[in-house]
């Protein structure tokens, strides 16, 4: 019994653990779309995202008897999903330089300077409705190194805390922060190059030199 707020999934989890498939299926229905969307953002392909969802819930079935109520079910589920997504990335990208690179730390020392600096010509809520823009967003995300994309997805899209992401990925909080900054800067550059209003472009200030 944890002292944190009650886990809303606990009644279903308890029933599922007792062998009730219908209860388990309700948990699947509750979270499959979210796991799918997060997995898709991390692995970048529909078939791979489906595989992650399948493997995740299969692992849940296997490990349900060991589920400890000290963490929330959803936290546990997301942990399993992230592990499967990372495993799949390692498998797909084996031998290339886009792997997670384990714990190896990134530094602040050679941050890329913003190149194209301009306000956007539309506001984000308008852009989000546009199909072409959705394509731009997923392409930009896909161009990030795995280690940056994974941190960005978990921190900025899933809205997990720095410490949770550090734990999920097995890296330090400091490393989560640097990777997030690099991800944000790279995405900003890419998206602003497409959406920036050239007539209002501003030159970078070189006071730092």
């Amino acid at each position: 019994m944890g002292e944190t707020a009650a886990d809303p999934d606990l009644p279903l989890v308890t029933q599922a653990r007792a062998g009730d498939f219908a209860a388990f299926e309700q948990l699947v229905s509750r979270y499959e779309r979210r796991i799918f969307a997060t997995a898709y953002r991390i692995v970048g392909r529909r078939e791979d995202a489906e595989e992650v969802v399948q493997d995740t819930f299969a692992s849940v079935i296997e490990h349900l008897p060991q589920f400890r109520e000290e963490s929330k079910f959803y936290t546990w589920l997301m942990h399993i999903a992230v592990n499967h997504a990372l495993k799949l990335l390692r498998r797909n990208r084996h031998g290339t330089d886009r792997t997670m690179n384990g714990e190896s730390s990134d530094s602040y020392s050679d941050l890329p300077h913003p190149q194209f600096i301009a306000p956007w010509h539309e506001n984000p809520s308008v852009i989000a409705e546009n199909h072409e823009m959705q394509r731009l967003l997923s392409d930009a995300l896909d161009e990030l190194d795995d280690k940056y994309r994974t941190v960005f997805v978990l921190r900025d899209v899933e809205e997990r805390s720095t410490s949770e992401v550090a734990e999920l990925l097995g890296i330090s909080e400091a490393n989560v922060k640097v990777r997030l900054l690099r991800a944000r800067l790279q995405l900003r550059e890419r998206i602003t190059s497409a959406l920036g209003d050239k007539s209002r472009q501003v030159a970078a200030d070189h006071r730092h030199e």
Partner: protein
Amino acid sequence: MKCDELLKALNEYVDGQIDPAICEDFANHLAGCNPCQVVVDNIRNTIALYRSGERYEMPPEFHDRLRKQLREKWSTVFDGESQQTH
């Protein structure tokens, strides 16, 4: 504070977790530096854009395929040790 230093503290500022001691320097620099203002604004918009888009819809046929597979998995794990009835 210089533009470079502002860049390093950007996350904490955007996330509202900046050290109050640095926050004033940050705000002062920002007030006088248009490029940095635009960069901060671009980053906020970038995050907002990704956060607002839940565009990865699960294919409907996958819904059924998933359940079929999970039911099989379930029977290998659960039905081996006990029946569903108590």
